[in-house]
């Protein structure tokens, strides 16, 4: 009976998910024709070069191919992401604007600022005619349109869309051998039973090294663990991208860090932490920390990529499909991200060929363009599998020079890490970047995601200014207090009121009003 009910709920959820949440579509096939410009033209481009880009950024095979096809050659000034910010700022003050900013991810507040300074131009008027592939996504996903449209009603840039389903919700995994040894078929959904399991892990020498040093629960950061459990306490009902606000049971906008569910979650975390059921260095954990513990064969359950536990014991881990259920009966995978990432490619007023430029960038949102951006060239860097999807070939996967996959690709394509005016979606990215275990568990967990996953809201200029003053202080304080409540340095019952009062003194009310107007604008933009 219980199973039937779960299945029914799952199906209902699945239907609503398909109905509303992920309106980002698979990229459409290239429509349009080469060349994009009758006369050969050259554009000066200021670009971020990804971590893995190899050699001279001007010499990538991708640019040569595009030049032959489109008649547009690109002349790059490219910097790695460690210095791109300084270089970008100097570029803007020295009044020597390029024709195009490429791969330079910017917050919407910065986009608005540069737009007002006249450093970038609106592309709204060009999209329908010259950017059919990008426009297709905008048409189909009102939330994308809401994100791209600044408070002055214009669209200024191309953004990165990360819609690979494995990325939307991160994998959770458990040591399958240990789980069986403790007599469980699967990880329990109920948080109380889960805690009992963790206690058994703590008190049993599962790795048989003579010490009780097993870590029941670990992640690369506290935020990651928080997001794994927040759904069980009925908070973060609009997904992980909207960290501090969501909609409560009554359909009202709610500020999460002062909510009842948040307090209960901290209480649970406090128990886990104090009783040694959670990684004790969680507050400054990292991938390296997780690998260190993993290589000592001490991890029971973890969140993040399976790669992070290190190669030695990686294969012992299986996916966790259970969606945790809190004391008040909430059961939701709140850890679902919005696929809409920051804008990263902009045209400047110096550009004499905006139509051609828009067509060129838009190519990366077509199916062929996505393959070019992430997989390179058929026969050179990839071959097609039975589904017709590109898969990196042997030269990439087992490179004779011992290079990583991404480093091999770095000679051919501009992706190389970082943001792109393109789509990291399932048929290329999802196919190549994740293990089968991860693919399966993510697919399963994604079914229990929120109905609506919010992206980032846009605000007006004055609101951004107020936000930059208030938000940072409040968030720092919240993180500080969260750590204290979890370690027990602050008492959840005694100090909670003081915590709320301090937040109010710091301007929580104004912050909430700004969030509210951000939401109103977002909903209005979606409705249009």
């Amino acid at each position, binding site marked *: 009976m219980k199973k039937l009910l779960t299945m029914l709920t799952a199906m209902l959820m699945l239907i609503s998910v398909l109905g509303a949440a992920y309106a980002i579509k698979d990229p459409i096939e290239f429509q349009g024709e080469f060349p994009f410009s009758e006369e050969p033209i050259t554009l000066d481009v200021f670009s971020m070069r990804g971590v893995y880009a190899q050699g001279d950024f001007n010499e990538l095979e991708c640019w040569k191919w595009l030049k032959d096809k489109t008649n547009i050659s690109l002349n790059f*000034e490219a910097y790695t*992401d460690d210095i791109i910010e300084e270089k970008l700022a100097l570029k803007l*003050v020295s009044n020597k604007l390029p024709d195009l900013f490429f791969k330079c991810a910017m917050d919407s507040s910065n986009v608005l600022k540069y737009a007002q300074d006249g450093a970038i131009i609106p592309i709204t008027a060009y999209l329908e005619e010259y950017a059919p592939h990008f426009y297709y996504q905008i048409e189909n996903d009102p939330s994308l349109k809401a994100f791209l449209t600044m408070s002055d009603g214009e669209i200024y840039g191309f953004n990165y869309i990360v819609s690979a389903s494995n990325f939307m919700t991160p994998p959770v995994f458990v040591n399958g051998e240990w789980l069986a040894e403790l007599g469980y078929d699967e990880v329990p959904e109920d948080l109380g039973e889960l805690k009992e399991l963790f206690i058994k892990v703590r008190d049993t020498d599962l790795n048989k090294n003579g010490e009780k040093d097993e870590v029941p629960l670990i992640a690369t950061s506290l935020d990651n663990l928080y997001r794994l459990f927040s759904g069980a306490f009925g908070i973060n009902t609009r997904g992980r991208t909207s960290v501090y606000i969501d909609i409560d049971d009554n359909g009202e906008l709610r500020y999460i860090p002062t909510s009842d569910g948040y307090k209960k979650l901290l209480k649970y975390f406090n128990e886990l932490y104090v009783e040694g059921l959670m990684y004790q260095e969680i507050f400054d954990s990292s991938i390296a920390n997780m*690998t260190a513990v993993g*290589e000592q064969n001490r991890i029971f359950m973890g969140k993040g990529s399976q*790669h992070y536990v*290190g190669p030695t014991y990686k294969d012992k881990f299986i996916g966790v499909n259970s969606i945790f259920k809190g004391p008040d009966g909430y059961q939701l995978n709140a850890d679902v991200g919005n696929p809409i990432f920051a804008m990263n490619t902009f045209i400047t007023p110096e550009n004499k060929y905006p139509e051609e430029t828009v067509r060129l960038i838009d190519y990366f949102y077509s199916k062929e363009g996505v393959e070019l951006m992430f997989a390179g060239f058929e026969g050179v860097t990839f071959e097609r599998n039975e589904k017709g999807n590109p898969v990196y070939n042997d030269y990439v996967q087992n490179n004779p020079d011992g290079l990583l996959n991404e480093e091999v690709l770095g000679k051919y394509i501009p992706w190389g890490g970082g943001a792109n005016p393109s789509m990291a979606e399932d048929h290329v990215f999802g196919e190549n970047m994740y293990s089968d275990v991860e693919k399966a568990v993510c697919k399963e967990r994604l079914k229990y995601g929120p109905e609506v996953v919010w992206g980032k809201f846009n605000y007006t200029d004055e609101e951004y200014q107020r936000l930059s003053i208030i938000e940072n202080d409040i968030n720092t304080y919240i993180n500080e207090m969260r750590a204290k409540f979890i370690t027990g340095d602050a008492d959840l019952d005694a100090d909670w009121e003081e915590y709320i009062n301090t937040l109010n003194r710091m301007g929580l009310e104004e912050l909430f009003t700004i969030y509210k107007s951000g939401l109103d604008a977002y909903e209005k933009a979606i409705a249009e």
Partner: protein
Amino acid sequence: MVGKSKSDLVFDVFVYVILTVVLLIVVYPLYFVVIASISDPLSVLAGDVILTPKNLNLESYKMVFRDSSVMTGYRNTIFYTVVGTTVNMVLSTAAAYALSCRNLKGKGFILGMMVFTMFFNGGLIPTFITINNLGLLDTIWVMILPTAISTYNVMIMRTFFLNSIPYELQEAAIVDGASHFNILFNVILPLSKPILAVMVLYYAVWHWNSYFSAMIYLSDHNKYPLQLVLRRILIQSQASEESLIDAQGTFNRMLQGETMKYALIIVASAPVLCMYPFLQKYFVQGIMVGSVKG
């Protein structure tokens, strides 16, 4: 040990024990850098590398030198250090000598102007625009000319010339008919070896470690100094939260970075470490031995 009382012995033992502990505290991190750089990254992460290297491999050094920008960076840094230090030394010595002359007119004003720059400067953006207008942007000279003199170092040299070399020596030379060049090259400089050594060390280490002006003023990767290349490699090996997009790549890079950073420390600091022993003798050498009698 003959003739030592028991309490002396206890005292000696005590001193040796403390010194040994201090020595270990200082030396161990250096030693760890060396053994970690030649160990397997997974062993380093798991904390197995404590006293001896584990799963010996030179992979991290291979990776450092496989990155062609490390070798160009090396070449550039050596160039910037050698040429830069030479320019620094010539100009600083000339300035310090002139300012130490007792009969230089307007000395107070010049000194005042120089000291002024130690406390006030134009700020990053105006400096950038000036460098841009001078046409130095993205040339190798931007690493050498804007920093041709360090006021602080000139002050140190001037004070040394004034206070540590008796004016009577210069007077004697003037009586013998020496020009300023004679005095500088035949009297002052031979007596100033210690301060020259210190200055060379200051300037050279400064050039060797500098990356900020390169970061701001250089665009061409082939002109980047070693430090900027190392900075990039280090920063990029630190994985960020968003990197779950490409978890395998991120993981591999983190793993590479784990031992590569130690290899990089060795690669980057070995030349400077080698310089110290050669300059060290000047620090301890007596200076004025026998030049002036009573």
